[in-house]
């Protein structure tokens, strides 16, 4: 299962995502944001970081990168598209997910474990999880506060407490079809009990299982 892991200038979680996906048997590959073709890939991940230095608004410039055209095509074709942290912000800026991410309620960067609850198991990210399942996953963001005036976003994973003011306590949001998902905490950082948690595996496993080979 080939997964494109997109690297924008300023992305910094790309190597962690590759490592976690490999652990689950997928075949991830780093793809530079200037690429215009993702044919041959079964799915795509936009990893965390600070694409284009978060200039203007987080995700604003990345949403206009050449790579986003093929990402959009993959989303339309129903293929799994996952945005983590900054990737979530880019998906919102590019209109692939509803809403936007604004600075945390307390205006401070947060780097710590949070508890989240899976509330919807019909998306590519939550396919392997049970509704009601509680996971302990690191949060690591400044602009993690999701707002959706349209109220069309599907909240699929919810914070148990309220670390950042996110609407509806949303930690992960999907499009209507459930193939495009953005998540603010980092599942790839919770893939090894030696580091504190392996609760992220069930999410990434769902994503990997949702990858269907591209028809030849």
């Amino acid at each position, binding site marked *: 299962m080939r997964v494109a892991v997109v690297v924008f200038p*300023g992305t*910094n*979680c790309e190597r962690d995502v590759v490592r976690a996906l490999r652990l689950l048997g997928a075949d991830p590959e780093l793809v530079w944001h200037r690429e215009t073709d993702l044919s041959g890939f079964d799915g795509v991940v936009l990893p965390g*970081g*600070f694409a284009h230095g*978060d200039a203007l608004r987080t995700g604003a410039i990345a949403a206009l990168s050449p790579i986003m055209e093929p990402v959009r095509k993959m989303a339309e074709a129903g293929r799994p598209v996952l945005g983590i942290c900054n990737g979530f912000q880019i998906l919102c800026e590019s209109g692939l997910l509803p809403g936007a991410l604004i600075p945390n309620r307390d205006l401070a*960067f947060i780097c710590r474990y949070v508890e989240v609850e899976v509330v919807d198991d019909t998306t590519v990210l939550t396919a392997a999880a049970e509704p009601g399942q509680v996971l302990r996953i690191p949060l690591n963001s400044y602009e993690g506060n999701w707002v959706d005036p349209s109220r069309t976003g599907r909240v699929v994973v919810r914070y148990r407490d309220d670390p950042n003011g996110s609407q509806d306590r949303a930690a992960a949001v999907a499009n209507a079809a459930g193939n495009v998902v953005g998540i603010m905490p980092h599942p*790839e950082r919770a893939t*090894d009990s*030696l580091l504190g948690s392996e609760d992220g595996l069930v999410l990434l496993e769902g994503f990997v299982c949702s990858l269907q080979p591209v028809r030849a």
Partner: protein
Amino acid sequence: MTTTGTPVYAQLGMTEEEYLKVVEILGREPRPAELAMYSVMWSEHCSYKSSRAHLRRFPTEAPWVVVGPGENAGVVDIGDGWLAAIRIESHNHPSFVEPYQGAATGVGGILRDVFTMGARPVALWDQIRFGPLDQPRNRYLFGGVVSGIAGYGNAVGVPTVGGEVEFDDCYSGNPLVNVMCLGVLRKEQLVLGTAGAPGNVAVLLGAATGRDGIGGASVLASASFDESATTKRPSVQVGDPFEEKKLIEACLELYEKGLVDGIQDLGAAGLSCATSEPAGRAGLGMDVDLDRVHLRETGMTAPEILMSESQERMLAFVRPEKVDDVLEVARRWEIDASVIGTVRADDRLVVTHHGEVVADIPAASLSGDAPLYHRPIARPDWIDGLWADPYRPGDVLVVDTLLRLLRHPGVGSAAWAYEQYDHMLFLDTVVGPGHDGTLLRVEGTKKGLAVSTDGNGRLCLLDPRRGASRLVWEAALNVAVTGARPIAAVDNLNLGNPEKPEVMWQLVEVIEGMSEACEALGIPVVGGNVSLYNETDRRDINPTPVVGVLGLADPMPAPPPRLDRARPGMEIWLIGPEPTDNFAGSCLERLDGPPRGRPTAADPEAGRAVIEEALRLAHVAPVLHDVSDGGLAVAVAEICIASGVGATLEVEGTAALFGEDPHRFVAVVEPGWDPPALGRRIGAMGGDSLVVGGERVAVSALADAYRNAIPEAMRG
């Protein structure tokens, strides 16, 4: 050559004697650009002219040292083809002028020092010290520095995994911001700061050059602060972590493809340093054409271009046939690159600007011929008075004292700071911030690298030799309790004005103490930094050496000891010598007033034995915790808070509970274990309170005091 009555050399911070030495080297009066280059390269910050003679005392050799002091970072062999690169630096003065950018550019600079060696930077630490938080200015500086570290480190994508936060009056006018970086590389990827061979092409990579930090090295880091500090502001540099991230990836690709012969980062003294040092190291010279340097501003003069400290720049030395490949890598990572020079076969550094030669000097003279001072040294006369009047606390209320200690921002949790740092990136932080030492897994191996940094200005004020020695022992034990054997040390010596004989005495004593401890431990000093002139209005800071110790665990204990692994029913053991009733330099003494007395000396024999015991126990004990700030009571309280379990301590007396004598650690173990020779059982985990000396306090109350120490102080 005078403008306003003051000679130009003096305006650039040079003495007449130094100026005359330049004239002697050149055999003529220097051109303006030449004088500019000498002034920055011969500044205290770049040349270590006051400390260099004494730094030779450090033990620097061991079979596993690959690169010792003098290069951009120290490099040690950690086995199986892997190397570790480590470096520490200070950004004290820039952080006082502009805390956010000062700290941010400090982080950027230390990263470049490490990836210059061919290593991927894997982790950052920060040791930061401020005046008390009841003053708004100190809260502003502390907040700004933490934001700057977070802003740069998080964005560049290198985890900030630990460090120190400390507060003391002496840092009010002069905060200390030290940053340390660790990198990991394969042996074959090691690159040095050498120009290589004649004919090599110098390629300037990264950000455009502007008027940032003109004279930063000489003006900011080598002079004292006084009322006029604000007038020194025009030279503030601005960091761009996003540019640095691209630069890291581009450089790592250059190394992987073997495209560079040598590379040097541009830090203090900018191009002056990055051209002259690599040429000097290779015994060669260089032609440099300043018209080829990509600039951010118009109308820059040659001295400005040569002295600029614009951030995020590297100078690579490339064989002519590989230049196109280097430019292609730069283009792909979207960083600017210009070919600015060629390495010469002779030893001349020849710089042209607008077709005119603006400098023609022996390349090596900028660093090799830098002044070396043997400044007067005198033991301060006030020290005997301090020694004669030690603090004697007598009996204290245990719980009240413990809570007061935990509420002190220097003892309480630093989570307020480190939760703003991304400390988890790279998936290798096995033991992170909030512990004695950090433990990082080396990806794809069973090895772990541990690091601890320690500083203590109060201890070193009272006895710089004993104090510095104890810092080494403490850092070594901190590393050992993660299961890692100490293999190397780095140091950042923050002191006052070296023109005062007392400060020079402190410097020499600190070096001696560190050296003695390193020798006793058998570890080399592989790099360091000296930051002098840390004074405001003639008041020097307490001598504050910061010692970093690197340890190697091979194999790494999995899981290693952590503070949060204590469970009800486990036994608490204390390993190490019995404490004396000496409180000199301790946190208990700090609650009472200024430091006094003479600190307990380290005991090398006991120190080594305790470290060996820690290394053994790290593979069996769920919790190992060094006894340091606040003594045994604070150490056990920290375990209770992290694990959420109470404890009963069968220990009494102020010295036993709050003394900070060295070489002691707590082990929490399952009952019925094989007890170590150096240890004794002092209690057990259980319940939801800490019971000690006939008093009782809820763990939740301890946690509240500990976790709110800094947040409360920051509310003012």
